[in-house]
């Protein structure tokens, strides 16, 4: 039996020499890489913001700006409230409103329709459940971009160009949301259905009283993802909205770019201001609801 010294802290004097803090070079390197990566992500947008505060002539002759100029308010004001510039009949407010309609309309429509569909598939004994499943599932295969021209022809044939319906509804025709909810509903414990049936709840009550409250975070996460997806749509709005009154901010970017091919000096400051406005709402939502968003995104994988 060796010596045992059970020492209580009171007896112990301070250790003879405080060990010097070792600098962990590996960790320094990690931070260096992460800082570089963050700069890679942030600097371009920083430049856009700074450039938005200068006059078109400055930008035209000197390129993007690293420092704040004096035209910030003017450029944002012009981008938001002045008709003309890039388009003749709409201002930034109108486009912002259209973007909101598209983003929220798409997200809400998608959530409602796909929650219903997923509920039917997961919780009901259906003869053609497998068939319905595959019909819906196949839509995951083909992005809108692939079938863009025939889709356009169909919508045009229905007279839905330059309508919000034509803008939003075809985008909903994919099953991503249904799959999110299907996966989520399947993870809800079966005992809950059994318990609520014993408590006398039918399918409608179960859906409203149990399933929707349980899905709250999931709904929030999907809303964020779908809102960003809808807001950022470009190709479809480009085709379906030719009237400027229906332009979204992202659609408006196309007009900006096309003025760049003109010979006159483009309204760089306003263009950058509009770009900032176009990215701000989805960026803010993603940053502030980061945890929900990340959860929703990564759990769709399983």
């Amino acid at each position, binding site marked *: 039996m060796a010596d045992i010294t059970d020492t209580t802290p009171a007896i112990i004097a301070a250790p003879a020499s405080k060990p010097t803090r070792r600098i962990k070079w590996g960790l320094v390197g990690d931070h260096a890489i992460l800082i570089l990566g963050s700069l890679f992500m942030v600097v371009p*947008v920083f430049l856009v913001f700074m450039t938005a505060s200068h006059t078109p002539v400055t930008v035209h002759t*000197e390129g993007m700006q690293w420092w704040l100029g004096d035209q910030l308010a003017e450029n944002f004001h012009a981008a938001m409230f002045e008709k003309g510039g890039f388009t003749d009949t709409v201002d930034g407010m109108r486009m912002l409103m259209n973007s909101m309609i598209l983003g929220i309309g798409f997200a809400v429509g998608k959530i409602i329709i796909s929650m219903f569909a997923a509920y039917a598939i997961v919780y009901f004994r259906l003869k053609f459940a497998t068939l319905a499943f595959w019909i819906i599932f196949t839509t995951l295969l083909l992005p809108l971009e692939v079938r863009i021209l025939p889709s356009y*022809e169909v919508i045009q044939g229905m007279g839905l160009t330059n309508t919000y319906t034509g803008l939003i509804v075809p985008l909903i025709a994919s099953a991503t949301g249904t799959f999110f909810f299907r996966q989520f509903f399947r993870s809800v414990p079966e005992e809950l259905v059994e318990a609520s049936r014993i408590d006398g709840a039918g399918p409608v009550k179960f859906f409203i009283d149990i399933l929707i409250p349980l899905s709250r975070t999931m709904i929030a996460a999907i809303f964020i993802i779908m809102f960003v997806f809808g807001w950022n749509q470009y190709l479809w709005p480009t085709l379906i909205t030719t009237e400027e009154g229906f332009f979204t901010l992202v659609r408006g970017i196309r007009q900006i770019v096309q003025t760049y091919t003109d010979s006159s000096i483009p309204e760089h400051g306003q263009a950058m201001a509009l770009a900032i406005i176009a990215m701000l709402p989805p960026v803010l939502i993603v940053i502030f609801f980061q945890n929900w968003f990340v959860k929703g995104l990564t759990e769709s994988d399983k």
Partner: protein
Amino acid sequence: MKRAVFSNPWLPILILSPQLAIIAVFFYWPAGFAIQSSFFLQDPFGFGSTFVGVSNYTDLFASSEYLRVAWFTIIYTVLVTFFSLAIALLLAVKADNVLRGAKTYRTLLMWVYAIAPPVAGLMGVMLFDQSTGPITELFGAFGWDFRLGVNYWDTATAMIIVAVWKQVPVNFIFFLSGLQSIPRSVREAALIDNRSASGRFWDVIFPLLAPTAFFLLIINITYALFDTFGVIDTLVKGEPGNNPMTLVYKVFIDGFRGNDLGGSSAQSVVLMVLVLILTIVQFRMMERRIHYT
């Protein structure tokens, strides 16, 4: 399938019908229409069309321009996928290592997810501007006379950089969440078994990330093929001319500028087949994907 289900006969059909109706009208109809149109030659002035069999397809594969676009699409997809995965993996591994500032880094590295591709493209137009773009100047300092919109491969480089910039965040989020789901004790066991950090990464961490990486591979290929439309359209300012373009962009150009419904539809069908193959590969791999623990 759940054990306990409701057996109401009409309710499920009722709540399933909106989804099915939308899919039928806006998915199956156009898709069928595409397949049908791909076998017809449409009169350029809209007066009827003629059945031409597979000649739209044979024309396609005989067209040197189409093959050139296909070839570029492959190179572009490979490079975009590789760089956005590699950069995101590196950043995710580092972000997983550090404790201090981890949350800040995560935010800084993921928020670009929310920026629309065409907005990123517009930023690219400014950054790569032929005379005043900061990146053009940077390249110039290294003796590279960068000419966006003039030189084919210079334009391609800008497209790839912007597309990668836009895609790194998604990959980063997935890789980081994949890394964080690796049990701490497994990493610690590796710490005892292997003194080399890179050895530990390639022997233990990377294999455990493989399912995530494979899932992302498919996502990134799809992204490069289809979702970078906005990046390309803005970088070439809507006028591709002699600039590089991808297959999806060509579908758009031929269909809407060239009014070649048959040819464009044939291209759509080729892309559909491509996506189908990708999906089958994905499911094959997912079946074999080892469900650890």
